[in-house]
């Protein structure tokens, strides 16, 4: 790699944009932060000034409170931060998730944050933004990760529910993004029954509804009679699957919605009976297709299975480097 310092400086705890004097998704408090999306490994508390999409700010406000200086930036609007032109573009990951495009002295850099390519009824679709340096994630950067069509997975869920009318299906789904995705995908397949929620999911689902995402009828598990939950689909954060909380449910079939469910051992370790391969991250084909479409001069990889994606870049003669960012993917359940 070139030894001359670049205006974009990757550090273990974030990406520093030197001329703008701003950090992207820093994992420690800074004066000026650009935040791609609301997941905890990207959006931390304690910053002074923050730039993010309005939806991301709303999510952060709900989860962690407010920052002193909040700057809402709509998709496609261009800002000027000390001569760096900055704009936010849909990443297709969760509501409000953005890729951050930066242009400085004729060079364009895009930071994807986390992203996926397949349609998601709960957020805006990924936009291909051409650039010179493409800074990407690689959570599912191994060729064994190929997410099947989402409708197949939702079909499995509906099939399991239909086969066990006296039980319920308990789906472990991360509170921000995955839960709302599963709900809206169910609605797409014309499932109009009330969907029951663990208390930890209620506020975020309400936030999505406030932002115009049609979630259909949602009911809290708390206060619902056990017998009324027979034949129901219930969503809970993954941590609640094996918790005492689930004892109130009628003989639940444990499901989990995550890209990791592609690997048997991952599902077995968690005691999952119905693995649903539904991910908010790009799979291997999406990662490689995206690199081809964006056609950057260089690929930088923030986190995930970077070794394999580096190898792919080498095989396809794309210049690439791994940044070894820390603290990402601590919440594996989110994938």
């Amino acid at each position: 790699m070139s030894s001359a310092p670049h205006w974009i400086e990757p550090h273990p705890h974030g990406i520093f944009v030197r001329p703008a004097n701003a950090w992207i998704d820093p994992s420690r408090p800074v004066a000026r932060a650009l935040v791609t999306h609301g997941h905890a490994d990207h959006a931390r508390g304690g910053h002074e000034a923050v730039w993010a999409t309005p939806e991301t700010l709303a999510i952060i406000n709900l989860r962690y409170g407010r920052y002193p200086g909040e700057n809402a930036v709509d998709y496609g609007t261009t800002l000027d931060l000390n001569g760096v032109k900055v704009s936010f573009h849909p990443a297709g990951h969760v509501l409000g998730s953005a890729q951050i495009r930066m242009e400085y002295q004729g060079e364009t850099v895009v930071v994807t944050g986390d992203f996926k390519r397949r349609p998601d009824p709960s957020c805006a679709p990924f936009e291909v933004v051409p650039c010179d340096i493409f800074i990407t994630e690689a959570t599912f950067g191994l060729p064994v990760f190929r997410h099947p069509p989402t409708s197949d997975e939702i079909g499995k869920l509906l099939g399991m529910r239909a086969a066990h009318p006296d039980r319920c299906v308990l789906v472990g789904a991360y509170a921000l993004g995955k839960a709302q995705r599963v709900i809206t995908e169910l609605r797409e397949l014309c499932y109009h029954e009330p969907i029951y929620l663990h208390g930890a999911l209620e506020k975020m689902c309400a936030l999505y509804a406030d932002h115009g995402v049609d979630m259909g009828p949602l009911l809290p598990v708390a206060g619902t009679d056990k017998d009324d939950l027979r034949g129901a689909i219930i969503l809970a954060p993954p941590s609640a699957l094996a918790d005492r909380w689930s004892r109130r449910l009628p003989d639940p079939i444990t499901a989990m919605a995550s890209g990791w469910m592609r690997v048997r051992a991952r599902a077995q370790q968690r005691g999952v009976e119905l693995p649903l391969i539904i991910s908010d991250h790009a799979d291997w084909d999406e990662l490689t297709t995206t690199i081809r479409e964006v056609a950057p001069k260089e690929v930088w990889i923030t986190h995930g299975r970077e070794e394999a994606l580096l190898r792919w870049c080498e095989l396809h003669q794309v210049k690439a480097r791994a940044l070894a960012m820390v603290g990402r993917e601590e919440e594996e359940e989110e994938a």
Partner: protein
Amino acid sequence: MRAFASLVTQLGYTRSRNAKVALIADYLRATPDPDRGWALAALTGEADFAAVKSAAVRSMAMERVDPELFRLSRDFVGDTAETVALIWPEMAPPANDLRLADAVDAFAGVSRARAPALLGEYMDRLDSDGRYALIKLATGAMRVGISARLAKTAFAQGFGLDVDAVEEVWHALSPPYASLFAWGEGGPRPDPEGTPYFRPFMLAHPLEDGTVDLADYAAEWKWDGIRIQIVRVGNDTRLFSRGGDDISAAFPDIAAHMPVEGVFDGELLVRGAVQMGEAASFNALQQRLGRKTVSAKMLAEAPAFVRLYDLLIDGTEDLRLMPWSVRRERLEQRMAALPADRFDLSQIIAAQDFDELGRIRDGARDAAIEGVMLKRRDSLYVPGRRVGLWYKWKRDPLSADCVMMYAQRGSGKRSSFYSDYTFGCWTEDGELVPVGKAYSGFSDTELKWLDKFVRQNTLNRFGPVREVEKSLVLEVAFDSIHESKRHKSGIAMRFPRISRLRRDKPAAEADTVQTLKAFIT
């Protein structure tokens, strides 16, 4: 194949035994012959398809995917078959139209050279679950987390039969079990009369902390060989190992010298020169295991013999529903007809009471003695383990303090954990040399701790193996120690397992190889 693949996948995600039994039973009832028979053979481990080696499957994948990407994927997934199934490129949505029986027939008729190409053609027709099941089938390693017993139970339950009745005839039948399914559907019970076939063994529970009254129980030595069954019908003699595998070919020195018709239960041992012609350690026996043929030199150097425990069938008379004492008497009567250099009688240990038996047990230093067996004098010969009838009372394990040197990721459920540990002891020169490898004995909580220790104390990585800081002392329990030329330390442990994590003990205070050598038997 679709139904079978779905069964294999669902079994992988089902924890409850009853639910697994129900899944298999449903499949067997809903699937036609001969597919269900081949599936049952695969689940019970009876099907010796093994048309393709695991290494061939790996190279097939590497022809289609970059080897480096394959290697990285395999390290992450932790299972070669699954990695290949997942990574296999799909050109178009697969038709998924392969029939299980057609695949089995095709593999049975194909040459070893052409088998991988055939597997490749089939893989292109299947989805990832189908590919996974097919690879498991073609390599002969199902390992779907169910025992043969469970599959037989499912069959019995699915067709309203008694599982022990199924076990009794099981080993006389072969896949795809048309006569078995016919029986299940109301036809006659298969009649294996006149063929030498394996009868299920009676097994023992460990004697935990209790004592037994020697008036009710007879004590025998528990020999550290291989439990075998000798079946002679007409002029045909067969030797079966514990799982019912026919091992006659590896032991012609036994098979050719059994003159009495019937079914005998005993321990297969070899004579060792060091032991002055008496039973040698398991190590010596091991040299003769797993061979299709055996050389004259081996027959001379390590002659086998059988120490007889029991007589199940005398001629054609079934003794199994008679008490042990009656069977024992019958066995003693038959001994005179057997060549003494090939067959001897397991001796009853004379002890006044249980305490004396304990002292006799502790005093036994014989290399081939594992402990003591206690058999209720009135026990019938019933298959499997039954409470209160037979007990095994093993000698206390030996133990040593060793230092963790390397760790490797486990497979299957443990693929994300460093769960296999190589540990070492000190030489006189102050060097640490590996003395064994263990992957059991610790709790789930300890496993999590060990995994974290490995990750935080990694010095080097060699593929899936990590070399760790030599700081953690593991107390390792083992049954015995033998000399070994294959290991740098010159010793090999039998049944090593981690008995305790000695986080309190400095590595420098771990045991020396010299100390371990004192245990050699």
